[in-house]
C-alpha cells in the first residue's frame, strides 16, 4: 500500500485499523479451540498461469469438489489464488462490463479511497480477535469482486483459495460488492493440496449487498485433518436486498470456527443461511450465523443440517437479533449423531432488543434416524446400510429455493462422494 497516495483521512483510517489489530494480536476468539498462530509462517509466492487448464491435474480434481471448474464456459468470472499469489483472474468476455474481479491488494491500489471509506474493515472489526489481527497485519491477498449496478449475472462467479504448503497461514481478506439492483452467484472453494498437513486459513470476508441487489454465496470447504480454519465474515444488506449463504463442509478439518454476521440495515432486506455439515474423524466444528434484523420488514431464515461421525464435535449455532417490530425470522437446526464417540450441540439463540413486535422462532433437534424409516426402505429390498445412507443423504439435501442448478448438482455430488466414502 506504500506506493499508493491516500488522503489524510484515509491514512488515518489505516492507522486506526492497524492499531485495533495490534491490540488484538494475542486475543483468543470467543468461540472455538485456541490456536498458537505464531507457529505458522505466511504462505509463499506462486507463479501465475495463463489458463486454468494449466493447473496441476490433482489441483484441478481437488478444487472441482468445491465447485471450481477449469471449464469456464459455465462461469462468468474466475479468481484463483495459490498460497499468497492470485495466479489467475479473468472475467468472461460477455460479462466484461458487469463484473470486476481482482485481488484486494490490487483493488486497494485502484480504489483506495473508496475502499477505505466504505468497504475495508467496515463489516468486520479488525480488533475482534487474533485471527482478524493476523489478517490485518499480515494479509496475503484475497479476492475483490464487484458487480455493477443493475447487472444480473446468472452464471456463477468462481473463486478459489488454495494452500499448497504445510505449516503456513493463509491470511486472506475478501470483499464482494453487489451494487444496487445487481445480482450474482458466487461459488467459492477453499482447498488444500492433498500433501498439506498442518496449517491455518484465516479469512476475512466483507460482503455489501446494495438496494434491491441479490447475492447468493456458496462456499464448499475442503480441508484436511490437521488444518485449522478461522473465517470472519460480515455482511451488510441494504433496502430490498437479498443475501443467501450456502455453506457445505464434507471433509475432516482439525478445527473450524466461524460465525458470520449479517446486518439487515435496509428495510425489507433478507438473509438466508443454509448449511450442511458433516463432522468426520476428530474434527472440531463450531459454526453458526447471526442475523441482525434492523430495517423495517426484514426477514431471515437459517437452516442447518448436521451429521456427525467418528470422534467429531460439532456446535451448530444460530442467533437472531430483532431490533424492529416488523421483523420476522426463523432458525431450523437438525442434527444426527452417528457415532457414540461424537458430540453435537445445537445452540439456537434469539433476542428481541426493544422490539416487542419482532417474531423470532426456532426448531432445534438432535435425534437418530427413526428405525421405522430404515425398516420401511428395507421392505422395498434395500440393505440396511444403503437405507441409512439414503435417509442421511435425504436429511442433508435441504431444499434451497432459488439455488442455481449447477450449485445444486455440485452439492449433491459432494454429498454423494462423502456418503460413498463413509460406507
Amino acid at each position, binding site marked *: 500500500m506504500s506506493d499508493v497516495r491516500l488522503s489524510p483521512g484515509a491514512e488515518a483510517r489505516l492507522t486506526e485499523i492497524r492499531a485495533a489489530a495490534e491490540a488484538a494480536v494475542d486475543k483468543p476468539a470467543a468461540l472455538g479451540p485456541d490456536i498458537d498462530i505464531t507457529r505458522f509462517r505466511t504462505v509463499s509466492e506462486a507463479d501465475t498461469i495463463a489458463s486454468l487448464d494449466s493447473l496441476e491435474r490433482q489441483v484441478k480434481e481437488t478444487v472441482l469438489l468445491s465447485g471450481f471448474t477449469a471449464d469456464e464456459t459455465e462461469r462468468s468470472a474466475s479468481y484463483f489464488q495459490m498460497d499468497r499469489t492470485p495466479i489467475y483472474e479473468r472475467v468472461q468476455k460477455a460479462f466484461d462490463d458487469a463484473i470486476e474481479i481482482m485481488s484486494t491488494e490490487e483493488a486497494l491500489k485502484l480504489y483506495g479511497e473508496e475502499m477505505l471509506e466504505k468497504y475495508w474493515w467496515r463489516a468486520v472489526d479488525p480488533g475482534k480477535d487474533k485471527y482478524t489481527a493476523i489478517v490485518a497485519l499480515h494479509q496475503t491477498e484475497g479476492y475483490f469482486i464487484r458487480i455493477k449496478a443493475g447487472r444480473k449475472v446468472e452464471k456463477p462467479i468462481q473463486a478459489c483459495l488454495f494452500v499448497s504448503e504445510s505449516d503456513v497461514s493463509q491470511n486472506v481478506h475478501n470483499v464482494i460488492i453487489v451494487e444496487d439492483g445487481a445480482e450474482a452467484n458466487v461459488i467459492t472453494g477453499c482447498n488444500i493440496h492433498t500433501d498439506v498437513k498442518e496449517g491455518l486459513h484465516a479469512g476475512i470476508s466483507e460482503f455489501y449487498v446494495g438496494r434491491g441487489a441479490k447475492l447468493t454465496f456458496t462456499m464448499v470447504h475442503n480441508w484436511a485433518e490437521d488444518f485449522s480454519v478461522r473465517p470472519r465474515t460480515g455482511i451488510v444488506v441494504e433496502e430490498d436486498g437479498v443475501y443467501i449463504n450456502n455453506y457445505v463442509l464434507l471433509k475432516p478439518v482439525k478445527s473450524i470456527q466461524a460465525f458470520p454476521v449479517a446486518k439487515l440495515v435496509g428495510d425489507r432486506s433478507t438473509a438466508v443461511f443454509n448449511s450442511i455439515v458433516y463432522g468426520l474423524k476428530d474434527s472440531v466444528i463450531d459454526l453458526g450465523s447471526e442475523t441482525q434484523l434492523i430495517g423495517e420488514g426484514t426477514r431471515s431464515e437459517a437452516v442447518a443440517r448436521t451429521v456427525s461421525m467418528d470422534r467429531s464435535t460439532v456446535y451448530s449455532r444460530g442467533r437472531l437479533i430483532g431490533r424492529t417490530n416488523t421483523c420476522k425470522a426463523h432458525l431450523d437446526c437438525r442434527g444426527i449423531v452417528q457415532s457414540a464417540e461424537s458430540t453435537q450441540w445445537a445452540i439456537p439463540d434469539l433476542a428481541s432488543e426493544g422490539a416487542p413486535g419482532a417474531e423470532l422462532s426456532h426448531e432445534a433437534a438432535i435425534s437418530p434416524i427413526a428405525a421405522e424409516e430404515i*425398516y420401511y426402505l*428395507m*421392505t422395498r*429390498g*434395500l*440393505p*440396511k446400510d444403503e437405507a441409512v445412507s*439414503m*435417509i442421511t443423504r*435425504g436429511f442433508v439435501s435441504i431444499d434451497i429455493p432459488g439455488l442455481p442448478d449447477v450449485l445444486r448438482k455440485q452439492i449433491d455430488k459432494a454429498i454423494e462422494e462423502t456418503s460413498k466414502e463413509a460406507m
Partner: protein
Amino acid sequence: MSSEQAAPLLRIEDLHVSVGERDILRGVDLTIEEGETHVLLGPNGGGKSTLLNTIVGIPGYRVTQGRIVFKGVDLAGLEIDERARLGIGIAFQRPPAVRGVRLRQMLEVAARSELTPDTVADLDETLSLGHMLDRDVNMGFSGGEAKRSEMAQLLAQMPDLALFDEPESGVDLDNIAVVGGAMNSLLKGEERISERRRAGLIITHTGHILEFVNADVGHVLYNGRLACKGNPLDLIEEISSHGYDKCVECALCQTFA
C-alpha cells in the same frame, strides 16, 4: 394335479409371536399357494398387523415358537431386505414419512434399478401420482395419497407375495376403486387363471376392498389364532350381523378350534 405337489408359496406353522412382554400370536397356521388371494379378518388389536410385520421381518416382533417358510426357505434369521428380495412385499397401513427421500426414489429402490420411464408413466396413469412423485415420501400425504403411493411401490416391486394392511382404511370411495384396481392388476395381472402366480394376503375391516379384488379364502384371527376359515364375503356378512364372538362358532366356517 401331480401326486408330488410343489411346496406352497407360504407356509406358517404354529407361529407364536411376542411384542415386548406380550404374547400376541399363539399358534397361527396358514398356507398360501401360488396365485391365491387370502383375506384376514379379526377384531381390532387382535394381531393382524403383527402377523404381517412378522412375515416381513420387522424387528421387535419376536417369533417364540413355530416357523414361517417362504418358497421353501425358512425366514428365521433373514433381514427385512432379504425377505423383500426373495419376493415378499407389503403395503403398510400407515407408512412413515421419510424426509428427503422422494416417492420416485422409493419406486427406483422397489424396482431394483429396473424402473423405466414407461413404468413410471404407467404407474402415474393408474394411480394418479402426479406431483407426489417428487415429494418426500408420505410427508403430508393425504390418506388416499399414502395408499396410492404404497400401491405404486408394490407395483414397481412386483412381489410374489403381496401383503396389504387395511388398504381401504381412511380412504374415500374413489380412492378405494383406484387402490383396488391396482391390487387386482398386481394379483391377477393379464395372465390367464391357470398361469396366475402372485399371491396376496389382505387385512380388511370393512370388506369394501373385496368389491374390487376377488379373494379366494377368508380367515378370522381371534385370540391369537386363525379361528376359522371360509368364503370371505360370507364371513364378513356373518361378522357384521353377529360379531366376531358368534362368527368363530358358526357353522359356515370350517373351524379349527
